């Protein structure tokens, strides 16, 4: 048993070390109002140098408005460091929400940037990545002028709990990093541009293979891509010749098989929809049939599109993990994927017809 006297010795020692630490200083202490927390970073290439944009919420009472700072340098980090030096506050990338790359950089390859983001922990792996078709200047001007809430708008554009719609791909840094190393998984990155009336508009998604942009898919195809990856398509309005419907639920089932050296994937997409509007007086069966045909066509077209690029953004290789050994999976993209056969069967259930009656 230890006597109380001894415990006091320990307490004294602890107190002393405590004081010593306090006296020696505090290292990581930097109050939040002395840090600046950029929300969006834009990266573009200008004559072999990086041109970096930061959208920074302005720290005034009320927290509204935002400003944009730009700088050029050899590496992204160098530019950020220069910002820190030149501004009255320290630039902290901890809260960076969106990184926008210029298309040219994406075509050259993102792998080094993404890897260094993953390595240094000051950028969260949850940061969303987007690609801009044009130069970044107009985009950031637009973001700045329409920032009412400290620039959180663009973040909300991608955030599932806020303004995200399934027409926009949602890809985070860690997913791109995974695709860099994965045998069977590529990603799609949303392409954005400044909108005419809205802040941002999405014009589709970039198909990324091994960190390089190899193609582009349309917003409608992005919807299919999201459905395939299990991101809900709810709330989506599908326009056809005879009207439009609202998708309420979707369910995807697969069965994969390997015949000879050829991979075959059978997909069944089951959609539950309600009817929103009609043109003329189509019957329910007609709408159902048209929807089935249209979606099947769309999926097949998108698949052929990305198959020709050998980019497996739908992660189809994942379904063959049970069928192929790891050594063979390594060659999935080159040996199996280009020759893969996809059978899609879309099955629509019209759950209800809204508040008006309709003939069957």
């Amino acid at each position: 048993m230890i006597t109380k006297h001894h415990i006091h010795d320990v307490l004294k020692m602890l107190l002393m070390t405590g004081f010593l630490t306090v006296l020696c200083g505090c290292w990581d202490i930097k109050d939040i109002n002395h840090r600046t927390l950029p929300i969006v970073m834009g990266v573009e290439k200008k004559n072999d140098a990086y041109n970096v944009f930061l959208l920074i919420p302005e720290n005034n009472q009320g927290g509204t408005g935002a400003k944009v700072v730009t700088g050029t340098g050899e590496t992204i980090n160098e530019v950020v460091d220069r910002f820190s030096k030149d501004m009255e506050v320290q630039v902290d990338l901890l809260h960076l929400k969106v990184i926008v790359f210029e298309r040219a950089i994406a075509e050259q390859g993102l792998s080094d940037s993404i890897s260094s983001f993953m390595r240094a922990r000051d950028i969260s792996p949850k940061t969303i990545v987007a690609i801009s078709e044009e130069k970044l200047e107009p985009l950031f001007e637009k973001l700045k002028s329409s920032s009412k809430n400290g620039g959180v708008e663009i973040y909300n554009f991608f955030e599932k709990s806020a303004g995200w719609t399934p027409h926009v791909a949602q890809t985070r840094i860690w997913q791109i990093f995974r695709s860099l190393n994965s045998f069977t998984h590529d990603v799609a990155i949303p392409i954005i541009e400044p909108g005419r009336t809205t802040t941002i508009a999405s014009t589709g998604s970039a198909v990324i293979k091994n960190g390089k942009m190899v193609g582009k898919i349309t917003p409608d195809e992005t919807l299919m891509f999201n459905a395939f990856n299990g991101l809900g398509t709810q709330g989506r309005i599908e326009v056809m010749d005879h009207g439009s419907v609202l998708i309420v639920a979707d369910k995807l089932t697969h069965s994969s098989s390997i015949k000879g050296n050829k991979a075959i994937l059978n997909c069944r997409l089951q959609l539950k929809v309600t009817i929103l509007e009609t043109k003329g007086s189509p019957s329910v069966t007609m709408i159902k049939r048209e929807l089935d045909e249209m979606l099947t066509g769309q999926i097949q077209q998108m698949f052929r599109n990305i198959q020709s690029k050998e980019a497996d953004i739908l992660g189809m290789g994942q379904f063959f993990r049970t069928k192929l050994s790891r050594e063979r999976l390594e060659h999935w993209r080159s040996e199996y994927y280009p020759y893969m056969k996809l059978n899609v069967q879309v099955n629509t259930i019209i759950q209800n017809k809204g508040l008006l009656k309709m003939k069957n």
Partner: protein
Amino acid sequence: MDKSLQVMVMYLLTHIGLIFFMYPTDIIEVVDVGHWSAILLGFALHVALMGIFLKGLGYFAPRNLIDIFLGVGKVFSIILLLPVTLYFLMTIIIDIRAYSEIVTLVFLAKTPLWVTMVLLLSVPAFISALGVETLFRSGVLVAILFFPFLLLIFCLSFQNADWRYIFPLMDKQAASLSYVVSRPYLLSLFAFTGGFMFLGFIPPYITYKRRKVMWASALLLPFFLISVYVPILTFGQSTASRFQFPFITAVDTVNISWLMFDRVTLFLLLSLVCFAMLFISLIMWKTTLLIRRGFPSIRPVTTTMLLSLAIFIVCLYIPDWKTVERLLWWNTYLRLYVMIVIPFITLFLGIRHHRKGAACP
């Protein structure tokens, strides 16, 4: 008084504090597919050795390991226990150094290492100076406070899981068990051995029922599986193998929109660091117990203080992560000794003792 609950909780905490950092790294390095076999093998080994150890101790209850060995002979016990002491010392040094490195790496980038080490050392020193009963009681309290939290985060960590990454379940390499002698696999055993030795030291201060502790070990298996499979399911083998701490990175990808905090990793990590602090204080207590047997004249608090000072100085001399890894590797030999030789000798002595007792009651 039966304090099985405290022992069980402490057993769980110390292991959980250990497994989520380096263990998944090692296991992912060991095999490309069929990680479960590597985990299960290690776990079975752990349970078996613990069973043997407890069985051996059971013959002598309520004496502790030191008394048992001293009962055989002084030289014998010195030879046997010296490596154990050395192993404990090295474990403390490695743990403190490694954890402060992790803390620096993950969220206190500008705080100098020694400051973090001071904290990680002074808290365990304080705990172990207060005695083992305090240590075990506070273990329960810490568990009540942090565990709900931890379980929540474990549930959330499956958010980005793609279950298809489980496949393929098996291949030739995993089936052949050829990895058993590989370096990372031997390294990974640290998660299994560090903990259970304390069961031999705590009686007669704290008594427990053998069977209950064995049951607690069954509760541990899910944690081992989670620690390896969460990164695998989130990233896939080939990506996960690129991370220094795969589990931490995997939890980093979890996105929760309803919580007021953005990075749940930090809370997970810190709960684990707190558990590790308890673990370190437990080892520290064991080490002081051993040292005081050797030099009974030193006061216990002085022992603890000198010990922590010495450890602190050694920690300051470890320059980089590579050295930590090398130390961990050197420690493997001691670890193998501690995890295999000590339980078997205890069992052997126990059976002998039992026979003697039966022969001349």
